[in-house]
Structure formats: C-alpha cells, structure tokens
C-alpha cells in the first residue's frame, strides 16, 4: 500500500512539474469557458425551449467529445512510454513492486489529474445555480458519467503508453482507439438487424452520457465502462511484463 502510494505521489509530482500539465489545464479551461458561454447564449435566446442547461455541458455537444478524445491521450502518453525510453522502467521493475502495482498507480495518478482538470467546472454549476434553480442529482450523475469516461479513456491511454517508447506514438494510437470506442456506438443508427443494433446501442457512449446528464444512473453503462477499463489495464500489465522487445 505504501509502495503504491509512493508511486502515485511520484507520478503526480511528474505531472505538475511538467509544462504540459499547465498547457492542458489552461487549454481545457479556455475551451470549457467558451462552451459555457456558447451554451448560456443559446439558452438566453428566447426561441430556445426550456431545458436542463447542464445537459449541454455534460456530453450534449460535440465539443465535449472532441476535446475529451484529444486531451486524455495527451495526459496518458507519458506514463509508461517515457519510463521505457529513459530506462527508468528498469529501475521500477527491479524494485519489489509488481507490474500490476505500477500500472494501477499510474492509472490512479492520471485519473487524479483528469479529475483535477474537471474541478474548475464546478464554478459553472455554481454560477448557473445562482441564476436558476438546479436539480443536484442530474449534476452529480453527470459528473459520475464524466468520471467513468475518464476511467475508460485513461485505461486506453495507459495501454498504448505501455506498448511503445515513443510518447507521440502512444498519444496517436490512444486517440485512434478512443475514436473507435466513441464512434462504434454511433453506428447504431446504421445497423440493420435488432441484435446488432442493441449491441451497438450498448456501446454508445453518447447515449451513456445523455442518460447520466439526465440524472439516470444506468448500471449497464457503469459496468460497460468499468469492465472495459479493467480489460485495458490488464492488457497494459501484460504488455509491461513482456519487456522482451526493448
């Protein structure tokens, strides 16, 4: 436990001592601010029908997805690829910690950073809350949805980072996998056959977020995100154990 804590702590030090973290944080804030402004403008238009404003913030627009698909690979690309490139992986894997422990610690650190990224958006909720009444449950469910997406996406990024010693390759590969994960559910509309349609529907991340932002916590979505993330983390552990190609 203490070893894992030390690993997580080291990883967080690495995050916050790199300029990349601040670039990502700034870009994310700027971007979210812009989306927030767009949404408030849209809602202020008298022609707009009454609706839950935060539903738009949480996955209701393509902006949300675009940025998420980009930003998570940037957060995760360094995690293992850099250790492999510089050789610090050799130190880590000859210390009495298991591959699984390393992977989990890295995952937790990246997830903490992801949460940190979203933290400032609570301000928007407070601002909106001061102008109109906000139902707290859909907000909480929306954040839960964002957290679950973070778990899934971070696991993907960690896996691709375990496969290469080049950060850029890791990021691009993660982006590709995430685009597939995201768009496979969108094929639902094109699917013929009810079985295929419901299978693709199960994997539809947009619908998942839509449910969450309406305050609907569907355990199927939770199970999908968590189990898939578990699979990717397991694969990352295996990739780390197979170091023969270095």
């Amino acid at each position: 436990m203490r070893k894992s804590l030390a690993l997580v702590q080291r990883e967080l030090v690495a995050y916050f001592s790199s300029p990349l973290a601040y670039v990502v944080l700034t870009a994310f804030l700027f971007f979210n601010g812009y989306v927030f402004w767009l949404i408030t403008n849209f809602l202020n238009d008298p022609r707009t029908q009454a609706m839950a404003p935060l539903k738009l913030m949480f996955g209701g627009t393509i902006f949300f997805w675009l940025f998420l698909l980009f930003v998570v690979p940037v957060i995760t690309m360094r995690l293992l690829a850099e250790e492999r490139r510089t050789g610090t992986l050799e130190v880590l894997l000859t210390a009495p910690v298991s591959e699984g422990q390393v992977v989990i610690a890295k995952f937790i650190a990246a997830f903490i950073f992801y949460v940190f990224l979203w933290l400032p958006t609570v301000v928007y909720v407070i601002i909106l809350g001061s102008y109109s009444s906000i139902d707290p449950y859909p907000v909480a469910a929306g954040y839960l949805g964002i957290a679950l997406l973070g778990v899934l996406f971070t696991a993907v990024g960690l896996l691709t980072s375990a496969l290469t010693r080049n950060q850029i390759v890791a990021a691009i590969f993660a982006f590709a996998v995430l685009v597939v994960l995201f768009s496979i559910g969108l094929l639902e509309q094109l699917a013929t056959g009810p079985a295929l349609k419901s299978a693709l529907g199960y994997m539809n991340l947009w619908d998942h977020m839509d449910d969450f932002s309406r305050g609907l916590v569907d355990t199927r979505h939770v199970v999908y995100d968590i189990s898939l993330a578990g699979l990717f983390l397991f694969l990352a552990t295996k990739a780390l154990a197979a170091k023969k190609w270095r």
Partner: protein
Amino acid sequence: MIEVEALTKRFVDRDAVSNVSFFVPEGEVLGFLGPNGAGKTTTMRMITGFLPATSGSVRVAGLDLARDPLGVRSRIGYLPENVALYPEMRVEEYLRFRAAIEGVPRKDVAARVDETCERTMIGDVRRQLIGTLSKGYRQRVGLAATLVHKPPVLILDEPTVGLDPRQIVKIRELIVELGRDHTVILSTHILPEVEQVCRRVLIIDDGKLVADGTPEQLRHGFAGAAEVVTQLDAPEGEARAALEKLPGASAVRSAGSGRFHVSVEGGADLRRAVFSLAVEKGWVLLELSQTAPSLEDTFLRLTTRDAAEHEAAEEVANA
C-alpha cells in the same frame, strides 16, 4: 548468496547468454568482465528479474527468482548501465521515493537517506533537481538509490562509465568499502578496475563463461607467456640466435637497435640466463626487465572478438 545455474537467454536468432553458471558467496566482490555485447548486461538483467530467462535458474539469498520474484528483487540493489533517473525530482525526494518502493519502514527513511547521501558524497546537492546535476553526481545519486534500502546484494552495471578520473577513483573506493558488508557483482570492461576492486573475476565472451578465478589466477593460468625485454649491444643475428637457445624461451622478437622481446613459457624468470649470456659473450647489457602477464593479456586471449582486433592492431604496430 547468488547462485546462477545454466542460465540461458535466447533472442530470436541467437543465444545472448548460453548456459552460464556461477556462485557468489556472501561478502564477495565479483568482477564481471567481457567485451561489449558479450552478454554482461543481459545476464545481470536476468539476475535482477528484469528480463525473463529462457532457461536456467537464479537463487539469491536462498530464494528462487522464479518462485519469489519480489523477494529476490527486495534483496538486490541494482544500478543499471545508463543510470536512469527522474530529472524532475529533487535528489532527496528521489531517494525517499526509492526507499518507499523498496519497503524501507517509514520511520527509518530519513535516517537512511542521510546515511546514503553521506556515503556517496552527494550531501551538497540534496535539494537540487536531478536534471541539473552533472554526470558524476547523477552516477552517485543512482548508486545512492541502489543502497538506500541496504540490500544484501548489489549489482552494478558499469558504474564508472563516463566519469572523470578523480570520480572513478572515488567510486572505486566506495565499491571496495561496500564490499565489506555487501555481496557485489560489478560489471565492467575496465581491467585495472577489476584488479583493484574484485577478489574474483568472471570473464564472459559471446554469451559463454570462459574464465572464473582470482585476478592472480587468471593472470597466470590463462595469459601464458610472460615476456623478458632486453637490449644488448651485440650483433643482431648472433644475439637473436643465442636468445632463442635459452631454456624456456619460446619466441624472440626483435624490436631493432639490439632490443629483443623474449617470450617465456610457464612463467620462468629468464633474466639471470640473459645476464649470464651477456657476460659470457662480453656483450654490454643496456636493458633487462621482465613483464608479468597482465589480466589484459588473459582478457584478450579469452575474448575472441577483441583478440582478432588485438592481433590486427599488433600487425599494424609491427609493420
């Protein structure tokens, strides 16, 4: 302390290490010699558990690496070849991190870090970022990190590469000192280093163990001919013929201006015979010395790849 048995590592098309066995008793400083690419690093990586062996077994402090990898890892302090550190961490912070992942009890960490910093002479850079340190300091920080949990076994892969001569001397002194309370495997291709630091030497070439013994044994057992160098004020041909007839002389090489290198079989001392010869013939003896076989000779004879290069170099020198 360390038992390596029939260790083999097969990469796709060749054996990087084949059938290497050796035993290192507790408290020994073992020199692991070999030309570049001979399999030193691969062997060390298999002992530390970083690379899985194709076959063979490793036991450290009675624990089998395959059965209890974490147990073995916690008993080894390993300094990899190109000391990899986290540049964004401060020295002290890094040492505390290493202590934590090695399982040093929380209450002991501060004391261990202090002790190790003092031992490796990095006290003056404790607060500095690792990325800003010079190569010599980084090497010592790496060494400190391998010591911080007081492992009974130290495995050091070329710890003095890239250091200036003063730093090399300091690191060697430190290794000798560490040898008093640790079992050490030290890989290097610097021969004087081995002679100064190690009580026992293994030579590996092309993945195979070719020699095992004390530096003394290796010098005499494998190096073969010692050499007597003499300079005589005498007719070249006659002197040469006379030297060749001396008992024990196996080959005589003329270096010009009456200077000869006489190879001696079996380590006999030919100086008396040469002196008597000079007296008998009335030649003036200008120089007479015996060169002991060096570990370098052994190394060059046993390691095929470099031996070829050595011969080529000698031919060039003789031409």
